[in-house]
């Protein structure tokens, strides 16, 4: 009954019906499970979202219409809901870094490691690295820096194993966080972020104190002069770019104008920031020489006031939110996204690279004109899934590491649902929050499909 046999497939045929019945019988246990453990609870929670279901029986059970949704979106719970929504969005700040990092790692592990032309040379290189690492570790141990000594030993072992096992070792190492239980990772990072004894602040403290010493040696006139020179260069570059943009824009169109104006503004702002730092360098080095308090601090890169969600200067810095963002980047950078990109890289036709090589393209041009466009569908898929995961996530980190603190800066929507459902036992309200979060995720995903998908189709059309 295949298309090539000349006969038409039809469900009316007895054999086809028999096969269908058999297929349904095999699928039924799974379908029952799906209905019982997925579909039914989802529908049940939808119904409960419109009730006052409360495990502490404050009121007789009954329907309350849209009251739960009203309370959360603009009523008595709205302030905390939107605050926790912003917290959730904040934790997604690391997403672009994580995705870019996954792509970079995938590109790196996509090629074999070639150290030396022969087997003997490779092992010789490994032995040299091993000896050098052991010597450095011993020296550090003698100098009383046992922690750093152990760290150098680990790096040495990793390097030697990389030489021995090649890129397979690094692929395994990068994927390792995925094998590890989440709670174990969070407990580990909680200790790493400990302000006094944590490894991160031990290293940061050493770096910052070195920088402060260096800042003390540098005469103030040096950074200020550097600032003046950089300011002049940035001003010249900015004006040049602006001139190019405006002169070309009638021909190239409004899109070109907007894109290059944005680039100009970023260049100007970045340059101004660098100049400001140079000018303030001596005072800045002294003021910012203490390592951050991480999980105990409400400071953050957005300078968000924990109470009012508005940016305020005194809250600028690195705190609990950023600690969780950094940890999430580490956890996701070598995970499923890297594997997806690896798979995507293997599907890029070799001929495309050969074609641009003929035109004299370098590595960056190859990436920009071949690799990146060809990976557009993979990137789109990763972005969509990452946004969904980001909006749903944050529960484990809050529960294990911070209990939502300090000052509720790490309470995400996922953790809020838990607090309302299992600390206040208001399951009707918690169900309503779940459905609102679903609505937000659905809307964002729909927007992604509408506009991101169009970009991929345009790219595919261009590349055809």
């Amino acid at each position: 009954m295949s298309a090539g046999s000349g006969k038409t497939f039809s469900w009316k045929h007895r054999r086809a019906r028999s096969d269908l019945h058999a297929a349904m019988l095999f699928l039924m246990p799974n379908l029952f499970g799906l209905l019982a453990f997925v579909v039914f609870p989802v529908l049940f929670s939808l119904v409960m979202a419109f009730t006052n279901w409360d495990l502490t029986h404050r009121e007789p059970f009954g329907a309350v219409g849209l009251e739960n949704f009203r309370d959360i979106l603009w009523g008595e719970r709205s302030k905390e809901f939107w605050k926790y929504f912003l917290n959730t969005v904040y934790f997604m700040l690391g997403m672009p870094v994580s995705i870019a990092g996954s792509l970079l790692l995938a590109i790196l592990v996509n090629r074999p490691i070639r150290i030396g032309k022969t087997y003997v040379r490779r092992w010789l290189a490994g032995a040299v690295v091993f000896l050098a690492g052991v010597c450095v570790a011993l020296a550090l141990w003698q100098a009383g820096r046992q922690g750093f000594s152990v760290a150098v030993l680990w790096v040495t072992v990793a390097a030697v194993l990389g030489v021995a096992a090649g890129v397979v070792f690094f692929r395994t190492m990068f994927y390792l966080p995925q094998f590890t239980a989440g709670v174990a990772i969070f407990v580990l990072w909680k200790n790493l972020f400990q302000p006094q004894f944590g490894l991160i602040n031990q290293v940061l403290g050493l770096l910052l104190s070195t920088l402060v010493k260096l800042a003390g040696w540098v005469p103030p006139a040096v950074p200020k002069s550097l600032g003046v020179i950089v300011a002049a260069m940035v001003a010249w570059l900015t004006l040049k770019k602006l001139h190019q943009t405006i002169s070309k824009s009638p021909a190239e169109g409004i899109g070109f104008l907007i894109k290059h104006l944005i680039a100009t503004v970023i260049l100007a702002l970045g340059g101004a920031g660098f100049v400001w730092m140079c000018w303030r360098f001596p005072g800045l080095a002294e003021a910012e020489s203490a390592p951050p308090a991480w999980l105990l601090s409400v400071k953050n890169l957005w300078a968000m006031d924990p109470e009012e969600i508005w940016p305020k200067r005194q809250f600028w810095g690195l705190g609990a939110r950023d600690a969780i963002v950094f940890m999430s980047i580490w956890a996701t950078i070598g995970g499923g996204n890297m594997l997806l990109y690896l798979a995507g890289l293997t599907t890029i036709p070799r001929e495309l690279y050969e074609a641009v090589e003929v035109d004299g393209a370098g590595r960056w041009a190859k990436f920009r004109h071949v690799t990146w466009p060809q990976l557009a569908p993979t990137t789109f898929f990763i972005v969509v899934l990452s946004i969904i995961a980001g909006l749903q996530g944050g529960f484990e980190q809050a529960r294990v590491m911070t209990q939502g603190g300090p000052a509720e800066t790490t309470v995400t929507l996922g953790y809020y649902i838990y607090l309302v459902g299992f600390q206040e036992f208001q399951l009707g309200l918690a169900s309503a929050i779940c459905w609102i979060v679903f609505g937000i995720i659905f809307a964002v995903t729909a927007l992604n499909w509408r506009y991101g998908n169009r970009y991929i189709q345009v790219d595919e059309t261009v590349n055809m």
Partner: protein
Amino acid sequence: MRRIFWAILFVLLAGSFLAWRLKPDTSEHGRTRLVWISDDNPVRREQIEIFNRSHPDILLTLDPGNIWMEKIIVQSIGGVGPDLFDAVGRYTIYGLVEAGVAMDLTDLAREHGFDLKRTWPAIAKELQIDGRQYSFPCNVVASVLFYNKALFDEYGVAYPPRDWTWDEFVDTASRLTRKARNRSGYECFGVAGLHWYELVLQAGGRMYSDDGTRCVLNSTKALKGIRFYYDLIHKYHIMPGPDDEALIRSEGGWGVGFLKWFGAGRVAMVRSGRAGLITLREYEALRGKIGAVHLPHDAEKAGLVYSRNCAVNRQSTNRDAAITFLEYLASDAYNTQIVRSADSLPPIPEYVDRDGFLHDPAHADEDFNDIFAEAMRRGVVPEISPLISPWVANKIMYDLIQDMSGNLRSPEETAEQMAFRVNRRIYQNLCKYQTFRDRYMTCTGKAFDAGDQQWKQYRQE
């Protein structure tokens, strides 16, 4: 294809039938299996063994993995809850009763001899909910300050008096606090584990008004206690702050935390109940070197007391066996075991007046046992308000105290925010639920008026 399906289905059904037939019987060798959710205290096993030996028709087993209140409630409502579960303090038993999972034991308790008249008066007050009894204490806790005599001798500080004031305490603790030599932080803290609410009580403050309808933690006296807690960490630097606590909290299990620091000589004094001795007795270096005194006081000699109490699941199918266990909690065998094992204080007060408690020959160096009974008799149970769930109020206060401990808020702001947020939640409960309005009427004798001026500041902006 269909034949294959039916063959597989037959095999699976046969396997399921076999598994059902081979399933272990809940009544092990004819014994009724009782599941008790409690903590993983090492002495729990001995307590269970004594019960099982004296009741050959019952097999009591411990489940230490589900001790969280939300787990107990959800499991019980789902029909897979335990027969017996522990509740620590007033807040937890209140929540379990409100959720409808704890059985009303009032009549059975009178009949079987474990009514609340048999236990400590303060605990009887703690466990009575609307005049009914829902649990019986497994043990009762009154906190004292254990001090390390070796550290006092090393630093040349005189041992503390049995009763002392805040000023004397700060002076002593300051002389025991030592900064670390080659790194930031402290090598030894003067004290650890003090509770902010006890300091409020010691300053003469209260959590709620007399009628329980408003939170008054922003009163002058309450603020004094809160400020003293803050000063212990940030002004006198004699108590560890959240960054030090964070180091300890990543450890899990029973009996960890500041007791281990005390055992390691990193804290000279630690607030704990008598159960702390279970952990401290493991330290050879502390043999004969532990002393105990009352918590320091200000205007009031106050300390918190509470119980770990055991309730019966309303849906338990082994009700009679569960009641037998509660009888056991009031028995001589159990109370004697509590006295011997130092698992806090026995639920029956008369056991602390016996010689076996005051002078335990197995631990002759522990010559301070009378202080626990004294602390128990002068202690007070935590306050609750009928207009807000205790654990909701507790979470609000805990989060704010944590922020204050981390120097993110001043004591004044903390006290104001605690009162404001709790009262706002009370206001919201009153607006939303008739049950709370009825309770308000009972407490104040008048109807709740949402438009009243006293509630103006809690209305949503």
